[in-house]
């Protein structure tokens, strides 16, 4: 065993290597950037992606109208504006409003002055609810009575001190034709319809309005947020799942590989969109994504048991053969893990026949269950040790010394084992302290339609990555350095994460970038079919779908959302192509 001094040298060495590898990767990045920069299309793609991301981040600043939320709603809502339906882009009428003013003095609503206010509901926070904007009037265009006859324009004037207030002339009251009020049409000017970043005169709805009177431009801007969220979430999760499944399949091969690949074949056999549609339909009744408590406790404890077992067999027992099969071999060959799982399920009370609380009459609170299951694991560890000592006759010589050295933070191998155990232990403790005393752990509280779409796309997308990663792993697995790591005795997880995956990431990165675009396309397609976002959400596919009834009369309603999709997806595709040129030189032609 190394002493403290040796450990210090090791640490210095590793720090030096880290710095070297950092500077090397920075150099690689620089070289990659130089290659990337050469392609005009790739730069165009980068520009598109950056600008769409900027728009998504600063949507609050750029957009004119904003969605609001009631306290009870979980989805964005846009206030309807019946005066401004289906207006073409740059329409003057965007700053034109009609308002009814009650003039009958007998009415309870009567007052001599009336405030000009917009129909738009604006809100800064969910807690505030919403309020209507006060408009500042620039010009009164006409006054009509309830039957549509024009009235004398001088009957109503703008208050000279406050341009938001109409003053009603006394002549209005006596006239019997005004009993039920008059309609006043006026031009207004205020923040409600102006873009701070555009010159004067261009600041009315630049993409027009839709059927409900929402500003199409604002919805397109907010749609960037929705689409990018979907794209990045789905791509990240599919990559994670696909990588795990694909690397298991590629590394272990054999029967596992065969089964996983057949499952992938099933997924490939059904066209993606139809598959996603079926998944969306299947998830329709899911309102929140929860994890049963037993699973939430089981996962960390299982991991803890697994690493504890590996730790014990490398430190306390001196068997030479334990090193190589310590990780996966435990799962495959060792019955003790199965026993520990069964014991755990029993103590958690999940085995319904003999529930813990009935059996012992003790409180079945989670903390108690967790502690008891941990105790069981420790007991099991003792049993394993005894088993090895007395049945398998493994030598225990020097066990204390090895335990001591295993807690030596300077030994990188021991340190890794130890660190992993600590991570899972702290996870379990955190979980216990979180105070989540329901019967289920809530992962996603509002499993709304967007989440349904995202999960449907994740379910349909992972086989592609699994196949990609499997191929890469099969390729890298045969290389000499993996052989070397194996012969040194590195566990499969270490070989996987430290040796194989870092050498297989290049096609993964390209696929990831391209997949963001593909996901945005599929999600908008699902929304278009009415299976995606909730009605009136600012989702591009949905906006196109909503514009279908009037797309010949008002093509701007579908033109701009579609352009937004095309630009975003094109950007990601060009970016992916550019990255492919950098990381995979043989494709560069």
């Amino acid at each position, binding site marked *: 065993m190394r002493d403290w001094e040796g450990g210090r040298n090791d640490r210095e060495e590793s720090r030096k290597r880290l710095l070297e590898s950092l500077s090397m990767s920075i150099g690689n990045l620089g070289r990659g950037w130089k290659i990337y920069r050469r392609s005009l*299309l790739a730069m165009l793609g980068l520009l598109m992606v950056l600008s769409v991301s900027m728009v998504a981040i600063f949507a609050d600043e750029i957009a004119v109208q904003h969605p609001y939320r009631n306290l009870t709603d979980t989805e964005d809502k846009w206030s309807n504006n019946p005066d401004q339906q289906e207006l073409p882009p740059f329409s003057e009428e965007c700053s034109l409003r009609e308002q009814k003013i009650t003039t009958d003095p007998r009415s309870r609503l009567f007052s001599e002055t009336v405030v000009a206010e917009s129909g738009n509901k604006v809100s800064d926070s969910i807690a505030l609810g919403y309020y209507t904007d006060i408009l500042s009037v620039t010009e009164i265009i006409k006054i009509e009575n309830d039957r549509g006859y024009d009235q004398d324009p001088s009957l109503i004037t703008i208050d000279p001190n406050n341009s938001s207030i109409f003053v009603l002339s006394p002549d209005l009251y006596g006239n019997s034709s005004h009993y039920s009020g008059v309609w006043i049409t006026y031009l207004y000017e205020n923040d409600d319809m102006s873009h701070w970043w555009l010159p004067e005169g261009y600041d009315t709805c630049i993409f027009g309005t839709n059927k409900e009177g929402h500003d199409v431009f604002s919805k397109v801007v907010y749609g960037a947020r929705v689409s990018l969220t979907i794209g990045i979430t789905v791509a990240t999760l599919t990559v994670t799942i696909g990588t795990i499944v694909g690397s298991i399949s590629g590394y272990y091969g054999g029967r596992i590989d065969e089964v996983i690949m057949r499952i992938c*074949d*099933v997924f490939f056999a059904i066209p993606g969109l139809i598959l996603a549609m*079926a998944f969306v339909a299947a998830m329709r009744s899911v309102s929140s994504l929860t994890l049963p408590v037993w699973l939430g406790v089981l996962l960390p404890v299982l991991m803890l048991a697994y690493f504890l077992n590996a730790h014990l067999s490398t430190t306390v027992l001196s068997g030479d053969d334990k090193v190589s099969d310590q990780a996966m071999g435990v799962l495959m060959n060792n019955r003790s893990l199965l026993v520990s799982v069964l014991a755990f399920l029993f103590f958690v009370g999940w085995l319904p026949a003999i529930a813990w609380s009935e059996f012992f009459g003790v409180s079945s609170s989670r903390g108690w269950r967790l502690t008891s299951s941990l105790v069981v694991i420790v007991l099991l560890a003792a049993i394993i040790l005894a088993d090895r000592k007395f049945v398998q006759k493994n030598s225990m010589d020097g066990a204390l010394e090895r335990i001591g050295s295993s807690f030596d933070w300077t030994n990188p191998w021991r340190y890794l084992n130890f660190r992993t155990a600590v991570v899972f232990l702290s996870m379990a403790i955190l979980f216990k302290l979180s105070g989540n005393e329901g019967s289920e752990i809530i992962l996603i509280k509002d499993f709304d339609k967007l989440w349904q779409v995202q999960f449907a796309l994740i379910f349909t997308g992972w086989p592609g990555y699994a196949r990609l990663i499997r191929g890469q792993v099969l390729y890298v697995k045969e290389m000499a350095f993996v052989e070397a790591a194996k012969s040194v005795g590195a566990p499969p997880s270490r070989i996987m994460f430290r040796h194989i995956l870092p050498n297989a990431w290049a096609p993964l990165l390209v696929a990831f970038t391209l997949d963001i*675009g593909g996901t945005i396309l599929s999600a908008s397609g699902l929304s*278009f079919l009415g299976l995606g976002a909730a009605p009136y959400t600012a989702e591009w596919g949905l906006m196109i779908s909503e514009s279908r009834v009037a*797309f010949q009369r008002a093509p701007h309603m579908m033109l701009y959302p579609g352009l937004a999709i095309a630009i975003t997806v094109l950007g990601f595709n060009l970016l992916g192509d550019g990255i492919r040129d950098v990381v995979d030189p043989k494709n560069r032609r």
Partner: protein
Amino acid sequence: MKLHEFVVRRLLLLIPVMIGVAVFTFAVAQIIPGDPAALQCGDKCGLIVGYDDDGNPITAHQANRERLRLDDPVSIQFERYITDLINGDWGESQKNGRPVLDIIKTSAPVTLEMAFFSLMIAYPLGIFLGIISAVRQDRMFDHVSRFFAIAFVSLPIFWFAMLLQLYFATGPEVGGICDPIFGTEGGCFPIFDRHDQSYTYPVEGYHWFYPEAGTGFHLVDSWFVTDAKLAELPSEFDTNRELFMDTLTHLVLPCSALGIASSGSLLRYMRASLLEVLHEDYVRTARAKGLSEFRVVVVHACRNAMVPIVTILGFSIGGAIGGAVLTESVFGIHGMGTVAVLGILQLEYQIVMGVTLLTSVIFLLSNLIVDIAYAIVDPRVRLE
């Protein structure tokens, strides 16, 4: 490996996948919320239709559940599902009681027709542009066509279809560009459906003027409509030829939308494959012999570059069926995609199961045929 061995092996590999798809569709149908029994009786579910042996009332809902045998264990339901599938009983629509197989029989040919013609557009276009792009590598044309290839892949197909409708199927007053160019009135192509809308047809007998044993392919059937049925149609359809042309023009826009969208990836494949072949020794030899560049590219290089393109035909068919869902929705065509969307929106799981199964069968079979063709063309594949 002999060719027949290869074919047999591929066929055997198909079996687990087919079983998997059947299991999968069954599982999805089990998860989809909604009670098919309640769907069938609608608002009359509370109606008492009889009494059981103990004298307890049986509601229509309970009777339906019993008739559909929904209370059986899942394993028995699955067994019944598989035997029914093999016996050709794919269930029936919960709303109107039409057999699913019948619905699919009328809708599948429509989608296949569309997919076929869209590939007829996509393949020549993609291959032609790919060849030019590869020959003129790194020139202006190459850059432009590569950009458009990526752009076509990136376009949302439903939006592209709507743009085609807007510009080629409407008059100039709403932005149509077709009228000034071709001198037509109200757009060059029809905007909706598979037939002229000047005559209406009963919803159920959607292809009522076709021969009794029609193929379901509208183009074929329109050619074989009997004179007696033609007489029932409006006067502009006097002959089969006019009817045929009408159905053909209705195909142009949807097929162009699908075809152009899928030609982008074909262009890229063709370009990459041809570039690889152009660096081969035999191409150099052909050039050294003094053959014209046209002959070198078209006769020597292209034939070899086409082989990998043929292999993605199977995937293209799958992609075209997937894209057909969206295109059919835009153009109001009653194909499999529309049937699937309606089935999912109305929670008719029997229809969803049927369509999923059929599309996967089509996809797998087309891939199988392509693979066998590939093995015939390129014997190296069989060796692995």
